[in-house]
C-alpha cells in the first residue's frame, strides 16, 4: 500500500493549475478515490496538481436563476449548505448519503463527478436535475449536459488537460418534489442501486418527471421510459408501480459479489417506486 513516486504542486491560481494539467499533470481533489488507487498501484500519476489549494473553487451560490457549485465543494459543504437545502434539497440529500463522515469531509463534488464511478451517488441526482458541467481547459471553456457527460464506467466527456470547474443545477418551484433512495453496499457505502426522483405536479397530474439511476449499470442514466410513462398520470400507486417497473428496461445490469444483476434490477424498481412516492409526498 505504498504509492509510486510522484511530484506534487499546490497551484496558486487556476491558470497555473490548467497550465500544469496541459503538460500532463493529473488533478487531485479530495483524494478519496485517487489515493487508494495509487496505493494499490492501479494508478501511478507522475505529477499531481491539488485543486483544493485553489481557495475560490469551493463556492456554492445562486446566480441568474440557477445554482452554481464549485468543483472543490466537499460533500459536507453541499450537505450542510442552507442555500441548497432550500433551493435544491435533492443535492443535500444525496450528499448526505455518500460514504461516511470522513469521506464527506474530504471528497468533492468535482472529484466524484469526474471520477464517474458507476456506483457513485451524485451522478443519479445530477442526471435527474439535468445538471450542466463547466469544463475548462488552458485555452477554452465549454458546458456539457449530464446526459452527454457520463459516457461509461470511469469515463466522462472530460478531455485530457481539462478540469471540471463548476456544476450548475436549476432551481425548481414549489410544485416540484424530489427524493434520493439508495441501498448502500455495506463495506464501501457506495450505491448498490440509487435512484433520484424529481417530479412536478399540476392540477393533480404529473407534468414532469426525471429519474436518475446509479449503480445498476456502467454509468448513471436517465430512465426515460419511466419518465414518459409518468407524465400526465395522476400518481396512483398503480401509476407509480407501472412506471417504476420500466426503470431497468434495456439496461445491462452489473453483477458482482454484493448483488447479482437480477437483484440489482429488482432493487432499481423498488427504489424508483419509493423515490417517486417520497418525492410526490414532498410537494408542498
Amino acid at each position, binding site marked *: 500500500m505504498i504509492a509510486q513516486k510522484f511530484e506534487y504542486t499546490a497551484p496558486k491560481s487556476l491558470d497555473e493549475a490548467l497550465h500544469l494539467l496541459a503538460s500532463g499533470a493529473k488533478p487531485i481533489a479530495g483524494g478519496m478515490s485517487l489515493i487508494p488507487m495509487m496505493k494499490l498501484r492501479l494508478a501511478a500519476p507522475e505529477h499531481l496538481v491539488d485543486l483544493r489549494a485553489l481557495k475560490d473553487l469551493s463556492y456554492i451560490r445562486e446566480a441568474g436563476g440557477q445554482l452554481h457549485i464549485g468543483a472543490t465543494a466537499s460533500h459536507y459543504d453541499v450537505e450542510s449548505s442552507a442555500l441548497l437545502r432550500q433551493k435544491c434539497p435533492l443535492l443535500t440529500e444525496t450528499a448526505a448519503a455518500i460514504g461516511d463522515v470522513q469521506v464527506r469531509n474530504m471528497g468533492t463534488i468535482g472529484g466524484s463527478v469526474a471520477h464517474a464511478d458507476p456506483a457513485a451517488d451524485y451522478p443519479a441526482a445530477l442526471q435527474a436535475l439535468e445538471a450542466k458541467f463547466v469544463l475548462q481547459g488552458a485555452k477554452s471553456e465549454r458546458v456539457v449536459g449530464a446526459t452527454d457527460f457520463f459516457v461509461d464506467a470511469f469515463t466522462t466527456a472530460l478531455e485530457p488537460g481539462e478540469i471540471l470547474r463548476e456544476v450548475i443545477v436549476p432551481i425548481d418551484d414549489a410544485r416540484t418534489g424530489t427524493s434520493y433512495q439508495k*441501498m448502500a453496499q*455495506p463495506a464501501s457505502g457506495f450505491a448498490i442501486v440509487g435512484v433520484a426522483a424529481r417530479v412536478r405536479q399540476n392540477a393533480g397530474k404529473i407534468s414532469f418527471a426525471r429519474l436518475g439511476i446509479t449503480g445498476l449499470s456502467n454509468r448513471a442514466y436517465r430512465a426515460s421510459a419511466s419518465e414518459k410513462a409518468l407524465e400526465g398520470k395522476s400518481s396512483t400507486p398503480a401509476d407509480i408501480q407501472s412506471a417504476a417497473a420500466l426503470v431497468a428496461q434495456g439496461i445491462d445490469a452489473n453483477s458482482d459479489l*454484493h448483488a447479482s444483476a437480477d437483484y440489482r434490477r429488482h432493487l432499481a424498481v423498488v427504489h424508483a417506486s419509493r423515490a417517486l412516492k417520497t418525492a410526490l409526498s414532498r410537494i408542498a
Partner: protein
Amino acid sequence: MATTTVKTETFVGKRIRRREDPRLITGTATYVEDVQMPGMHYAVILRSPHAAARIRSIDTKQAVAAPGVVCVFTGKDIKGVGAVPCGIAMPDLRVPPHTILATDRVYFVGHPIAVVVARDRYLARDAADLIEVDYQVLPAVADPEKALAKVVKQRIVSQRLVPMAMETRGVVAEWHGADRQLNLYTSTQIPHLVRTLVAGMLGLEENRMRVIAPEVGGGFGSKLNVYAEEALTGYVSMKIQKPVKWIESRRENFTCTIHGRGHVDFYEIAAKRDGTILGIKLKLIQDVGAYHQLLTPLIPQLSVLMMPGLYNTQNIRADIVGVFTNCVPTDAYRGAGRPEATHGIERMVDMLAAELQMDPAEIRLKNFVTKDKFPYPTATGLVYDSGDYATPLKKALDLVGYHKLRQEQADARKQSKYMGIGISTYGEICAIGPSPATPAGGWESATVKIEPSGKVTIMTGACPHGQGEETTFAQIAADELGVGLDDILVLRGDTAVVQYGIGTFGSRATAVGGSALYYALQDLKAKIKKFGAMLLESEDVTLTGGKVICNKTGNSKSLQEIAGATYRALKLPPNTEPGLMATRFWEPPNFTFPFGAHIVVTDIDGETGQIKIRRYVAVDDCGNILNPLIVDGQVHGGVAQGLGQALWEQAVYDDNGQLITGELMDYAVPRSHMMPWIESHHTCTPSPVNPLGVKGVGEAGTIGCSPAVVNSVVDALSPLGVRHIDMPLTPEKIWKLLATKN
C-alpha cells in the same frame, strides 16, 4: 498518637473509567510503527500472486541493483532458521513443513517469497516490483468440501472471517551483535511465547532475546500466533547488523494474517417427542488453509468440547476433518471454536423446536442443566464450574417482553409482514485453562512490587492489550492494599520487564492473571502486616485503608512508612527478608464457564430483503463483575463482531484461490452507524474456580450473537417454510427466499 482515619473508598465493582484510554484516544500511544531508531532499515516482502504454483526461478538482480537497496533474501538464502511452529500435537496430525520464505512451491496468495531491505520503505517497495519470479501455475483448491465426498444432513456454515485488527501486524528487530542481543518489537498477544519460539527458530539463546509488545491495536486472536515475519525480520537484522522495520499493509493483513472460522458442520440432533434432547452428532470440516499455524488444529477441538452447550445430554459424537486449502491458514478468532459450536447447537435446537412445534424458549428451559447439578461433568470431558441457565433466559424474555412480541408477530403475519424473535442461550469455555488441557501452560503470573515510596507496580504476564486490565488490576490491588488507583502502575508486554507469562486470549487475563495478582497481593499483605506489627510493637494489628493499625492503641503506620522500612532494613521481623515484592504463578484448577441469553427482534423489508434489528437484549453471566463499564464495553465489541459475521462479513476466495474480498471496500466490517442499540444486562453466578469469582467476558458477545440473529431471521421467514440460512444474511439471500417461497 497517629491518625486512625481509614480510607474507605473501594474500587472493585464500580464503573471506573479506563485508565488506558487517554493515551489511546489522544493518539499518544506507541505502536510498533511508532518505534524509531537511528539507522533504521525497512523490509518489504514480495508475496505470491498465485494460490498454487511451482517456483521455477527467482531473479533478484535488478532489485539488488535498485537505488537504496541493501539486500534481498529469497527462501534459498535463508539458512539455519526453523519452521513456523504449530503448537498442537495429536496422533495422525499432518503438519507440513512451513518455512519462513517459500522455496520451490507456493500454497496461497500472499505466501512470502522474498524480502527486500532498503534505507527507505518507498525504495524497498519499488524494488520489490523488480524481482522476477517464474511461476508454473498449478490448480488450486479453495473450497474444503471440494476435496471431500458428499454427506447430506443439516449443513451449517461458519464462514471464513478476517479478524481485522485496526493495527495491522508489524515488527521492528534490533540486533546488537556485540552483546549478542536481539530486541524484537512485535504486535502480539503473547510476547513470552513469541520469544521462546522465535529464539528457537533463529537458533538464539532465549535469554539473548527480548520481545516487546508495545501498544497493540487489536488482536482478536490474530496476534495469538507466531508468524514467519517475526523470525524473518529478526533474521534480516542479525544478517545486516542494523535495525529493521516491517509493517504489514492492510492488503497483506487480509491475505497473510490468519483468518478465523471456516467451518462446515453437519449436525444431527435427536430428541424425545416431548422435546428432551437425547444426543447431538457432528461432522466438522475445518478449512485449515495452507498450513497449520500455532493453534489451527485446536480450534475445532474447542468446538467439539463446547458441543453440549447448556443442555443436559450425555450423548455426543463428533468427527473432525481438517482439509488443507490454497488459502491463508485459519486459527483463533474471537471465540475460537465456541462461536462455531454455539451457532450449530443453537440453530439445531431451534430446528428441533420447530419440528416439534414447541416454543424455542420452552425447549431450552426444558433441557438446561439445572442449578443443582453443578459441578456438571459433560460428555466431552469438561466439568462446568457453576451455572444457573434459566435465570438469564427468563430475565431476557422479561426484558424483551416476549409474550407481547409473539402476539405482535401473530398479527404481523396476518398482514404478511416479516418479524422475527430469535433466542440464543450460549455457554462458553473461558479462563483458559488448566495446564494439562492447554498446549503451552495454562497458568498465569503476576509480580507486585511496592517501591520504597509506597507506590505499587504490577507486572502481569498476561499481556492485556486494550481489554482494560490496566484499570481492573489496579482496582483489585487498590482494594487489597487500601491505596488509590493513581498509586498503581500496571506493566505488561516486555519480556525484559515482566516475568514469564502466557498471554491474553480465551477470556483468561482477569480470571487467571487477576488471580495470580490476587495471590501475590496476599503474600505482600502478610509481609506488610509483619513489618507493621514490628514497627508498632504489637501482634494485634489490622491492615486496612493503606495502614497497619494496632488494635489496642489505635496507633498506625502507613504503607509508605512500612515500605520505606522494608527497604531501609534497619530492623527485620524474624525470618523475613528486606524488600516488598511478590511473584505468583497461578495454576487454575479448572476452566470457567460463563453463559447467557441473547434475544434479537428483527423486521424484514419484504421488498428488498433488508434486515433491521429492532431490539438486541443481552443478558450475560460472567460471574463477579469487577468493572461494569468495561464488561459492557466487551459485550458491545463482541456483539459488533458477532453481527459482522451474522450479517455482513465474509472472506471469499474464488476458485483460483484469489481473495476477492481483499480490501475494506469489499469486506464489510461493521461500523458504528450499522450497530443497533444493545441492551446489556447481567446475572451473577460467581465462579468457584478462582478467588475473584470471575469467569471472563471477552468473547461472550460474539458467541451469543450470531445464532440469535439467524434464529430471529429464520423465525421471521418460517411461515414460508424456511428452516436454515447460512451467514452472512445478505439482503439478496433473503430476497431470493422471499421470491422463491412466496
